[in-house]
């Protein structure tokens, strides 16, 4: 059966930052059912690559990226406004997806272990909890392609396990996940490792 149309296709990406060449002629395609982990030592350009693939960085690199369909990008920062409550953060999120009903928001917050915290101001939450508010969007949004930058940071072991099973469930449902992380994924699903070493992508 012909391979399904890729959700994301990048061709001969080349990026150098401050005179240092991070990667050259990197091409990749991510289709439905792909669970891809981007690995590599610090400073090798994983975040820069992810931002280019997401379409956040538009300048400073050569090569082309085509995306079909909507994507969800979760970056290092938690994108949670401290003065708003978790419910308001998710309801009024600037990510452009639709407005979620209260039930959906409460369900998502419960999934990430924030049951009961829906209406406390976010600045009273810990850093890990604030990241969980952002991760709750994984349960809310309908984009097939997820680009996640270090999703497990500041999340406890139970949370990490739950996230990994969510990724598998999403990928089996026809979605795709590209994430950067230093922790190996403990999932019984084929993980495509993409390691970025100095100057080229294996």
């Amino acid at each position, binding site marked *: 059966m012909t391979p399904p149309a890729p959700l994301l296709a990048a061709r001969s990406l080349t990026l150098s*930052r*401050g*005179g240092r060449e991070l990667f050259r002629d990197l091409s990749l395609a991510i289709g439905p059912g792909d669970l891809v982990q981007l690995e590599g030592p610090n400073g090798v350009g994983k975040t820069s690559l992810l931002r280019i693939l997401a379409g956040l960085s538009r*300048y*400073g690199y050569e090569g082309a990226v085509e995306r079909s369909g909507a994507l969800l990008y979760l970056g290092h920062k938690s994108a949670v406004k401290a003065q708003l409550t978790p419910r308001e953060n998710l309801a009024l999120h600037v990510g452009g997806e639709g407005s979620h009903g209260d039930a959906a928001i409460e369900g998502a917050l419960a999934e990430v272990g924030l049951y009961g915290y829906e209406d406390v101001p976010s600045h009273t939450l810990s850093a890990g909890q604030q990241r969980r508010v952002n991760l709750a969007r994984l349960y809310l949004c309908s984009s097939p392609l997820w680009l996640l930058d270090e999703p497990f940071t500041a999340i406890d072991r139970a949370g990490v396990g739950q996230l990994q099973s969510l990724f598998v469930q999403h990928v089996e449902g026809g979605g795709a996940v590209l994430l950067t992380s230093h922790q190996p994924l403990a999932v019984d699903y084929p993980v495509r490792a993409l390691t970025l070493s100095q100057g080229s992508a294996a």
Partner: protein
Amino acid sequence: MWSFFHKLGSPPWLYGIAGSILRYLLPVTVIALVVGAVWGLLFTAPDFRQGNSYRIIYIHVPAAVVALAGYYVMAAAGAVSLIWRMKMADVAMKAAAPIGAALTFVALFTGSVWGKPTWGTWWVWDARITSMLVLLFLYLGVVALYEAFDNKEAASKACAVLSLVGMVNIPIIYKSVDWWYSLHQPASIKFTGESTIDSSMLYPLLLMITAFYCLFACAMLMNMRAELLEREAKTGWVRKLAAEGAH
């Protein structure tokens, strides 16, 4: 035509072509400047009202004219770099900015020195001088914005946007300053010689304006060559150039 446009994008070709243009343009410019200055300073009769101080017109007006035109050159280079994403346009824009600022400063300085004998004060809030001061701020804004960025790729794109915004605003600023000046001092003479000056004074002025345009082109090409070397320091053609110890 398209291959020319494409070749414009390759640094070594641009470096070479700029060098050959300069070999002819620079001497011509220097001669034109010297001839124009000597002609204006020594061989024209003084203005019956202002006396000899009007001779400053031969550097004040050309500097002002080219400084303003320089901003449009910079904005055009910025537009090319934003729309067609050509690296060479970034180099051209970065080369044009300091020269424009320098010429604007020259125009301001000579204008204020000219004001002293004519109007008795060093600084006159005349329409032309005020607009020139605003132009200097616009230039300094572009230069300061470029320096403020660490990522030089983003810096040139940001300066391209700023210079385009400035380009749209320049006519508005010039018109409103002119209107403001006429509101507060309607009956004073037009300061920078819009009044008809007879032909014996006009020819040296036209020569000097052309010479200043050529000088702007020369300085810009030189800046571009230096900028190319700095940006392409790690590439082969620059190392070969350096190895040969080319002049």
